[in-house]
């Protein structure tokens, strides 16, 4: 589950897709060198780079 997002450093687009505090994010696949990361959030399937993923603070559930 997403605990918090560093709103200063992430584009609005990420929020608009549904990456918001309280939503569940699931990591489905990780490319070699751990970048990019294939995630499922808010019923959307996205691939994002590591630098962006690092701005999302999650809580393991």
């Amino acid at each position, binding site marked *: 589950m997403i605990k918090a997002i560093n*709103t*200063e450093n*992430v*584009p*609005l*687009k*990420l*929020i*608009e*897709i*549904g990456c*918001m505090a309280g939503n569940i994010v699931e990591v*489905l*696949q990780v*490319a*070699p*060198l751990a*970048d*990019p990361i*294939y995630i499922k959030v*808010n*019923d*959307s*399937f*996205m*691939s*994002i*780079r590591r630098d*962006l993923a690092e701005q999302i603070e999650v809580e393991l559930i």
Partner: protein
Amino acid sequence: MKSLKIVLVGNPNVGKTSIFNALTGLNQHVGNYPGVTIERKAGTTHLTKDIKATVVDLPGTYSINPSSKDEEVALKALYDPNNKDYPDVVVVVVEVENLKRNLLLFTQIKDLGFPTILALNMADQMDKKGISVNVALLEQKLQTKIVMISARKNEGIDTLKQAVLDCDQNATDNIFDLKSIDADYFQTLEMLYPNQNPYKVWLTQTKVFAFEGINPLVSSNTELQKNDSEIKRLQHKETIKRYQFINEILKETYAIDTTKAKDFRMRFDRILTHKFWGYVIFMVVMLLIYGSVFELAAYPMDFVDGLFSDLSAWVSSVLPEGKLTGLIADGIIVGLGGVMMFVPQIAILFFLISILEETGYMSRVVFLMDRLMRPFGLNGKSVVPLVSGTACAIPAIMAARNIENPKERLITMLVTPFMTCSARIPVYIIIISLIIPQTYLLGFIPLQALVMTGMYLLGFIGALGAGWVLSKVIKADRKSYFIIEMPTYKLPILKNVLLNMYEKVLSYIVGAGKIILALSVVLWFLGSHGPSDTFGNAEEIVTERYVQQETSAEQLENAIAEYELEHSYIGIIGRTVEPVFRPLGYDWKVSIAVLTSFAAREVFVGNLAVLYNLGADLDVEEDGGRIVDTLAKEKRADGTPVYSFAMGISLLLFYAFAMQCLSTVAITKKETNSWKWTVFQLVFMTGFAYIVSLVAYQILK
């Protein structure tokens, strides 16, 4: 006739283009927005017999806040009433599977005050996925007309047309209350801008766009004047509040039976994005594409080539001999042949690329390749243009269109011509057989083949290296983030694939074809004309020269051809620029051949043959030996061979890096939509080639 303006908006991968294709069919036109590389798709459709509508398909977006400068230009259609695309009706296309996310954009469009229709695409999939929607209630809550569509089955298109006609009665009030974000702030805005659409007022404050008659608030009062990070925080909050608003509505109107939802996605993704098998499959796919563009396209290309050379010969034989016939037969028809030659490759490549895009596989490619391509300023999708570039740069540069990020797209287009295209092969073969001995390295590796492989590698390294440099030099218009949707796997819709292919071929012929044709005619003129005292009397001068010797008719003819090329305008230019090429080790004959091969690299061999009195109708495969023998005997005044090792290497390097192809110049102009980048590429590549060749020759000499 009455005419309406419709704009289609929606998230990426919701089948917007399918609906656009279903509405417009072949009545569509794809162009560029002024100054940017985003495609503008527009078409016409008949709503009834008497009422026409123009339809504009906006690029897929998650929200009306543009995430790039290019997107901003496209979205102007929704902001600026004076924009030629400003709509009478907006159709928001959404897919049933991810209604929540899709509706975010809908509420924004609705709040801008447009008459809006909600098109629910892939409605035929609802049962299979266990989705049920209370349409009547949703219509009421969203104050809109909902049309169920299945673009794949061509269902609901007529209902959509009818809905557009009936649309005027639709409520155009705001549905989302901005005050839920920050009551005080938006209350104040409302007071300061009475009688204005509050959402437009707010968007003006975020500096996304300026609306007519609304100016951003300037105030020394810090309560009112928000700084950038406060604005951004409010935008974030707006998104969250909108989602809450949508969730409330969907709770009552939307249900999904998760037990019914069979998802093939994960099964496919587990293999296709696998750390090992993903790459293996991708390599197989790329080999298939490469093979198709390289091998399969060869047959229709030979056919087109033969057709136009027959036509040229036929015209020459039918029309009376003269300047005009020469222009038609050898200038225009040969030029047209040069344009049409590339059509099979472009058609095949885009047929395959469309399938990869339609199925959703392309996004997986991006996922797999992103990390590897990133250091070179390239995109995961750049692999397709780069690999296609080993067949031909023309379709390859066009393939870069599928890259969304403008900077990565530009870099991909600029570096693709470094890849060793098939036209360079004859040049390489001749030079390699001249300077590399036919020996085996370690007893079993043929040295010539090794050098040939090295040339391919050099092209690849050149492309990546240039990409790395360019990524440092070119500035992005704003920081771009990598957020790629991984769409569900779908069967491709043949109509979309074929329309895309048709459109790419058409845009090539119309856009780049005319430049190629014009340049070909100019080159033809320079190559077949010259000052009358030398060029005009070539036959007499040469015949006189050979009068004492016994020469066959063929030898004489070849000698005349050589004399003519030497004294044509391009020959004169070649001899004039010889000093420029001399430090690279080229004499005037090579200089002429290098210059003329700008029409197409393969011309190099043919023109060398002409310059050495071998006649123009040589084939590298059949007569390669003869050319090589002749060239090998060629000596300088001091007795050293012209085609020395140093000169050969210098020539190889020059051909590896120089922008030696006018068709590529034409396609770069067409695709970048800018002469600046076209000239930059030409100068960058050729300049680099010159320096590398110069250094190599001076060291090896």
